[in-house]
């Protein structure tokens, strides 16, 4: 009988999450002792029928009340602060993390590495490097949960959510869907394979996949985007070199950051945010482009984010 009581600790943040968990366990055990011991003691000592001194003048209880109000309050505030600090780091991936796109759908996970490798229900990653997942759903809300990493994030249709971790141990770990999503929710599981970096490099180039950005560039032409956003276009549409990651001025005099969400909304709901100096001419691609394809376009736009537009009349 294989009895595991503790999950594997396979990421950097898992250690910190566990420290907090065990501190809470210790605190809870202490409180239980402080409550149950007197409870049991009084229940026995003051059992009805026993001759015992029961004279009791309650007097002013507020001092003891305030004490046992303030002490728990301070303890809980301490735990809150510690936990908030860890959480803040859980939510902020470091720059330069390996990027993997995830699309969840009933009832499977589709993953795309930036270098082009595609996986279904599996995630191969190298040990020791931070990995950032950019995720969306094709249908209902799912959740990408890796217990060994102690990380989890809902995967929501209509928006991107991110999750990051730095694996510390080679091995195989469960991926679970952790947001109820229908009949085969329990079957929407997978495996993370953490490999040594050189093994990972070898795995990555199997089958000579095309990098995501190149696939995105091909799509940019085949879907007709370059027809308006290219230098020889007759339509007055903004050039997209140097756009991703920068601020975009809008017709409404506001500025918006051109991030993943902005690109996705521009493709699906172009009328919602018009760039300054341009008109509401772009058609919506809703129904004509898949979530994976949008992510490929985003990869392409990221790859030209530091270029300047060429061939445009000034």
């Amino acid at each position: 009988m294989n009895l595991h009581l503790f999950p594997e600790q396979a990421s950097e943040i898992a250690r910190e999450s566990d420290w907090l968990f065990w501190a809470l366990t210790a605190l809870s055990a202490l409180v239980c002792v402080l409550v149950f011991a007197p409870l049991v003691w009084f229940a026995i000592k003051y059992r009805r029928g026993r001759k015992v001194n029961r004279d009791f003048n309650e007097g002013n209880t507020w001092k003891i009340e305030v004490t046992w109000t303030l002490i728990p309050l301070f303890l809980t505030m301490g735990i809150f602060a510690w936990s908030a600090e860890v959480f803040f780091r859980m939510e902020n991936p470091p720059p330069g993390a390996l990027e993997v796109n995830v699309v969840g759908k009933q009832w499977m996970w589709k993953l795309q590495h930036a270098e082009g490798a595609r996986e279904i229900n599996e995630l191969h990653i190298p040990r020791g490097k931070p990995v950032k997942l950019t995720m969306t759903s094709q249908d209902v809300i799912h959740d990408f949960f890796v217990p060994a990493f102690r990380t989890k994030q809902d995967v929501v249709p209509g928006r991107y959510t991110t999750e990051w971790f730095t694996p510390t141990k080679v091995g195989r770990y469960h991926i679970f869907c952790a947001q109820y999503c229908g009949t085969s929710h329990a079957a929407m599981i997978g495996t993370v394979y953490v490999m040594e970096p050189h093994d990972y490099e070898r795995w990555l180039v199997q089958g000579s996949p095309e990098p995501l950005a190149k696939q995105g560039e091909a799509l940019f032409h085949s879907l007709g985007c370059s027809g308006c956003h290219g230098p020889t276009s007759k339509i007055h549409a903004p050039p997209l070199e140097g756009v991703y990651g920068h601020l975009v001025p809008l017709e409404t005099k506001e500025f918006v950051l051109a991030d993943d969400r902005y690109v996705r909304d521009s493709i699906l709901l172009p009328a919602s945010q018009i760039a300054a100096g341009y008109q509401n001419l772009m058609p919506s691609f809703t129904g004509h482009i898949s979530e994976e394809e949008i992510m490929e376009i985003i990869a392409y736009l990221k790859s030209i984010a530091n270029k300047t537009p060429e061939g445009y009349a000034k």
Partner: protein
Amino acid sequence: MNADESNYLSEHSVRSWLLTTDHKRIGILYLLSIVVYFAIAATAAALMRIQLLSPHSDLVLPETYNKLFTLHGVLMVWFFLIPSIPAVLGNFVIPMMIGARDVAFPKLNLISWYLFNIGGLCALYAVIWGGVDTGWTFYTPYSTTYANGHVVTMIMGVFIAGFGSILTGLNFIVTIHKMRAPGMTWFRLPLFIWSLYSTSLILVLATPVLAITLLAITVERLWGVGIFDPNLGGDPVLFQHMFWFYSHPAVYIMILPGMGVVSELITCFSRKRIFGYHFVAFSSLAIAVIGFLVWGHHMFVSSQSVYAGMVFSILSFIVAVPSAIKVFNWTATLYKGSISYDTPMLYAFGFIGLFTIGGLTGLFLAAIAVDVHLHDTYFVIAHFHYIMVGGMVLSFMGGLHYWWPKITGRMYPEVMGRIAALTTFVGFNLTFFPQFLLGYLGQPRRYHAYPPEFQIFHIFSTAGASILGVGYLMPLFYFLWSLKYGQRAPANPWQATGLEWQTPSPPPRENFGKIPIITEAPYDYHPEVEQAKPELQHV
């Protein structure tokens, strides 16, 4: 029942029951209803636990399993827990405890019961005609766009029953404000009243928001409006905000009355005044108020902003403090008391133990970084069952045993009562403690199948559930038995303070011949005096 005196149970016709406006009879009507819903929901749980005995069981289809946990959640939350203490014990006891003849609006009280059952029948219809598999939380867009089944019918059931809840809460608020006997000032009220008053505030303010949320899902499901479905331009997380804005305060509706019962039991069975009356009274109000501000702790990983998460986390820690105060005060009450181990007191001890554990595990979930790992795992299931079953159900049983003599005029068999209480306690812990470990290991909720390394915990849990089932069935049998064969109860079998014990058992229709005038603080017990009197020393 004494054949010479008439009491509220004397008239036997069906009409006198179905058209009653007597708060005591309405309490009994609610008791009968919730027992039926509880039985159905518990059967669903039993089926789930048997399915989970092995990692890939064929007992039920996956879709059936999903319908079972939805049924279990909907019936247990809205048709058992929320009405249990308020509508059964509250209805029966509140007017008598404050020295009134009935609640403020007796006809509205009856209408509440009918609304409750019309809602329940809708929900059962949805179940029988094919079932609903959205979970009791109805998350969108699954519930609005993807789920098959009778989602709208079930939602309408909850919607209608919700109006029953609102009317009950309204009735209690007005009753407690306006119908206290002369001399019964706010600070002479038993703590049961304070906690039911706080509960009623939540019932009245939170339930309408649920009504709107359910209406929104219905409209979107029937006519494709686009509030929640992103394909139609909506926001699925908006649903979560609206749902949890009600459903978090709802969990306080489910626990506050239990805390009120425990205050009554601890004082009576340790023959001692409550320690720190004012703190306990105000802690109920504090829980009700702060409880409205923490809903986002159900959404830490839903893509809500980091800063929103921080705010909800800190408030969730703060809301734990008033509950802790109650636990400390109850324990302190026992000091230098005169403690007996009657069945109601055993349930009260069980409550303190299990609620403490349940509440402490809530801190794990309030700690936002730890919640990331534990959210939507069995840890959460264990946490809320410790509070709902270990807390609320135990206190309901304790209160039912305590007031049973008053309600029926009969004593239940004490030895059986204690055995059932202990059986329930043991069965409960065996069922749910392993689930904390399962959750920490990473087993998610709502899974009909799981990886084999989790099996050992599920086996313990199912074994515990069978013991827990025995603990539930025993009272069903001996309470029924006691109606015919139980010892006749005197007016005050527990020698308790409190106005409800100044009436005969069972009480007359009008409760009091003459409305009493109150001059003393509540819980006027004197254990040091009583220990000199052997006739009061029954254990």
